[in-house]
């Protein structure tokens, strides 16, 4: 009973807090905050039950729970998680309370609505990673847009409306195409003898790879575009700097920490196993985009004047690594990509908290307004330093594990089949040091500003509450750096299965090229699905 429902409970638990909050008077601000924090903390606790109940060795999805939803269309409430989903869910439930705690005093108006939106957002995020029904997945996917739109649009900075609309339109544009592809896939399933319209991912795993290459290509493109915008993959990234800069701190933390991973998660969960043939043929172009993103994001980050924008562009660079790892289609690359999703959530989440805390104090984010902050905020300086080096990928901290495995995967990948992918992307490792250390230097080092005034304010070092926010993040930054096996072992089965599908596909396409061509010709003669 519990094992069957624990996942559902985790997904919807924030709604309980949501319901309770509806009955709390909006005047009682600290009460509202406390309810929000406690709800997200309990959700984290529930996800830990999942974590410790998870069997590393078992293949497939665990904690499965299925309930008929729309019977006629074979749509069901169907959830379940594998190791990758588990890690991302725990990341979500881990970061959400920290985002609330870290911005305890940053939000001053409409606190109730704000907390409601965060809780709703959490439901959507966990749901996305747990859904095994494509329709359900889409519902969660779109559910996220609404609270995020309001978080940016209501509690954001000066140009919040522009940023919110841009964020909304970019992502909606992508997801509408995905919706078409989802429906088309369900329909195609019904075209097989004895088949019927279905949204069940596990059934569709059997259908997708059998589709002819051209059809796979179109469906892949629709899914991939949606994910690429979310990641964001170059050149679909321009919504990100605006959204980040305008979003309130907690919004940025969640946006960077979790939302971006929905894109990379989507590639591994849907694109690769559903459309393996298309994935192989799209692989070089996506990998090239990923590498451009790594270098481009880093170079543009380097010249930013606003720290928050700098962190935003660094995300483009880091997520480029993740995509490269995925499309190396090797065990190393994919394991690296999954752990790097977690790493990026930790380090970039922490970086946005850092930027938020300094903005709360100085009311400016311009790098040139700072200098010598280390002197007045020594604890802050140490934390900023550790997080920076995590982001740079210093061995012994988390970022290195992901980056190294990704580079290793890209290097030895039979699919990419060229050393240049890894060689070019490794240049990003140099650039990461440049932009992080340069910004750190300009903000933290050097002489203290005249009178110790920054933006006209004096800076006080971190409060106990703020330090408490960072402690768990830094703990994991070191843990993953020193003993990543704890987490790598969770995602090993996911990786193994996807890699096996990809390798089989490549083997098949090499031996059976003639057969594939023949099938395609059949299809073009006015027949959607060839008899198999």
């Amino acid at each position: 009973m519990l094992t069957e429902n624990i996942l559902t409970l985790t997904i919807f638990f924030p709604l309980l807090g949501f319901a309770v909050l509806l009955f709390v008077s909006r005047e009682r601000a600290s009460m509202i905050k406390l309810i929000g924090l406690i709800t997200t903390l309990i959700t984290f606790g529930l996800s830990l039950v999942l974590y410790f109940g998870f069997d590393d060795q078992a293949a497939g999805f665990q904690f499965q729970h299925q309930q008929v939803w729309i019977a006629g269309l074979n749509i069901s409430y169907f959830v379940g998680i594998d190791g990758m989903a588990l890690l991302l869910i725990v990341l979500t439930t881990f970061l959400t309370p920290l985002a609330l705690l870290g911005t305890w005093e940053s939000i001053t108006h409409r606190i109730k609505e704000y907390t409601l939106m965060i809780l709703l957002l959490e439901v959507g995020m966990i749901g996305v990673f747990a859904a095994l029904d494509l329709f359900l997945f889409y519902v969660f996917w779109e559910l996220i847009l609404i609270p995020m739109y309001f978080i940016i649009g209501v509690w954001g900075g000066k140009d919040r409306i522009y940023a919110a609309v841009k964020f909304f339109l970019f992502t909606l544009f992508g997801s509408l195409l995905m919706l078409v592809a989802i429906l088309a896939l369900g329909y195609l399933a019904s075209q097989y003898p004895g088949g019927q319209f279905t949204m069940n991912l596990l059934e569709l795993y059997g259908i997708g790879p059998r589709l002819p290459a051209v059809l796979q290509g179109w469906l892949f493109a629709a899914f991939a575009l949606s994910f690429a915008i979310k990641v964001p993959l170059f050149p679909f990234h321009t919504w990100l700097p605006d959204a980040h800069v305008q979003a309130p701190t907690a919004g940025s933390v969640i946006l960077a920490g979790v939302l971006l991973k929905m894109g990379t998660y989507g590639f591994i969960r849907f694109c690769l196993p559903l459309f393996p043939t298309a994935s192989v043929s799209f692989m070089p172009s996506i990998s090239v985009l990923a590498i451009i993103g790594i270098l481009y994001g880093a170079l543009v980050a380097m010249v930013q004047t606003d720290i928050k924008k700098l962190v935003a562009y660094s995300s483009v660079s880091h997520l480029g690594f993740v995509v490269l790892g995925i499309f190396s289609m090797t065990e190393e690359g994919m394991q690296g990509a999954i752990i790097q999703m977690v790493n990026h959530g930790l380090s970039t989440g922490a970086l946005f908290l850092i930027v938020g805390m300094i903005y709360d104090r100085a009311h400016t984010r311009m790098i040139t307004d700072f200098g010598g902050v280390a002197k007045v905020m020594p604890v802050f300086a140490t934390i900023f330093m550790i997080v920076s080096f995590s982001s740079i990928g210093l061995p012994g901290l988390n970022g290195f594990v992901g980056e190294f495995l990704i580079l290793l995967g890209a290097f030895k990948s039979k699919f990419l089949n060229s050393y240049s992918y890894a060689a070019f992307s490794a240049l990003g490792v140099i650039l990461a040091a440049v932009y992080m250390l340069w910004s750190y230097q300009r903000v933290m080092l050097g002489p203290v500003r005249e009178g110790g005034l920054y933006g006209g304010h004096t800076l006080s070092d971190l409060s106990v509450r703020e330090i408490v926010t960072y402690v768990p993040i830094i703990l994991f930054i070191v843990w993953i750096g020193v003993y990543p096996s704890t987490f790598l072992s969770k995602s090993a089965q996911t990786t193994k299965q996807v890699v096996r599908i990809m390798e089989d596909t490549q083997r098949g396409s090499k031996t059976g090229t003639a057969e594939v061509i023949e099938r395609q010709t059949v299809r073009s003669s006015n027949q959607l699905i060839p008899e198999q």
Partner: protein
Amino acid sequence: MISLIPIVVALPLAGFLILGLFGSRMRSETVIGTLGSATVGISFAVASAIFVEMLGMDPIDRKQIVQLFTWISTTTDTPSSFSVPVAYQVDQLSILMTLIVTGVGFLIHVYSIGYMHGDKGFWRYFAYLNLFIFAMLNLVLSDNFLLMFLGWEGVGLCSYLLIGFWYEKKFTGDAAKKAFVVNRIGDFGFLLGMLLIFDRFGSLSFDTVFGSASVLSVGTPVLMWITLLLFVGAVGKSAQIPLYIWLPDAMAGPTPVSALIHAATMVTAGVYMVARCSILFALAPTTLEIVAIIGGLTAIFAASIGLVQNDIKKVLAYSTVSQLGYMFLAMGVAAFGAGIFHLMTHAFFKALLFLGSGAVIHAMHAEQDIQKMGGLKKYLPVTYWTFLLAAIAISGIPPFSGFFSKDEILWKTFSSPYGSVVLWGVAVLGAALTAFYMFRLVSLTFGGDERFGKHHHPHEAPKTMTIPLMVLAALSVIGGFVGIPPSLLGGNAIEHWLDPVFASANAKLGLGGHEIHAIEYVLMALSVGIAAAAIYASRTVYLKRHEIAEQLKNRYARFYNVLWNKYYVDEGIDKAIVNPTVLASESLLWKGFDVGIIDGVVNGSAKLMAVAAGWIRRMQTGVVQQYAVFFVGGIIAIIFWLVLN
């Protein structure tokens, strides 16, 4: 005993954690200093005990691996998957490095208690220093490339933290960042080298990789690429041409840091790495040649800059770059043992020189310009005498330590099938330059007239500082005796000790032992004679006939300016690489492509929609007659369409 090696590594880590977490609340410098020094001191004691035990062992048993835990592994069940442990390999080479790191490290910790007295970052300083020792021990003791890389980047981190230790000054931040970034360029090569190694050998463990490599034939192309990439890493870490540019700037850190990190230990990591991978380099003759050429060039290039610098630490920094060049020259001519020997003696005398310069700077209240010193001999007798001994040692005057190690390199450069007379000539020229600038430094600092103002009252450093100086001075004098060559009736103990480590490389190269040749004596006499002449010339110019220096400076003003401005390399790199990259990133990529093109398209299409919507909106005027016109017009259009079809 060997199984205790994790303790050697763990102690400095414990020191770092304790000082890092609680140091800010420790009030007493004595407690902090003692704790920081003791961790390293005990490490040294344990390492020494291991070393003594190894002396009594059969050479084959001296190599042991202590496995701790799996570090990074992609899966748990398939054996072919990527898996790298945290494991330490104790052998003749790594224990020697451990002794140098912890031994010299301990002395420098003790010295720092005096040097850093009164600094408000005292605890932070010792925390970083302990962390450095920890990282460095990982570097030298690792049994695989990846853990070595952890140490490699870890020492880079500590270097960054310690160069920028006095972070309130602008230039320390610049220097720290430059050091880390330039090192990262090298690490980029190291990283790719590792990837290539894993791709080809399926492992990153030294044993497996070297074992598989040793059956390959000399000149296998992939080994050339692997070794070249690894060498890029070494060039960065060990400050060789063209990546040496960070080291002179790194002098912005506290002087004991320069002694420990930027002279005795970290910067020699590249040399250690090449020695560790000797079998790979032995199979790649092209790389060896490049290593030798880069090493030789760096040796004279840096020495020539050192001739004219006036900052006491800058002179020593270029001297370090130059001496590291010698070590690479040794590696390049496959004289691995000689290179490590020089690494060791250099650790003694160069650490001593830096610590001595620290004592001078300490006495002169942060003055570093040797033109504003002079005559310090009588105020700082201990510093002077120890400094002088180190200067003689580095100049290669027998029987000081530097003589034996440098002479071994010179002879191997001449006699090895991978060496040449040209390289030998370069090395001897470098030795002459070294002797000259060292005694220029000694003369201007300690000799001659006092050129400092009356407000200076130089005083000898406290005991915590002078005792390490004396210990290092003793080592600088006698440290070479472990490597007396057979031609001078010695047994060359150190090279015999190291032989098993380089055995397979030497076997591949067909190198035998050290035979006695008459010509060796001739060359030895020649190089010593040249060095002695350089010392004499230098003392004459800078103690008695200052005007010669001025005349030379004026007559060859252009050449002097080139040297004084360090061949304009920094300026060139800024102009050619740094500024264009920043400019292009800002105006082309960000403001041009991102904001201009992509957002232009996005916002443009949004505007297009708005404009189109504006037009369509005009149709909704609310005037019924107009709607009737549209209605009739529509019907007519449909009828036309039907008719035409």
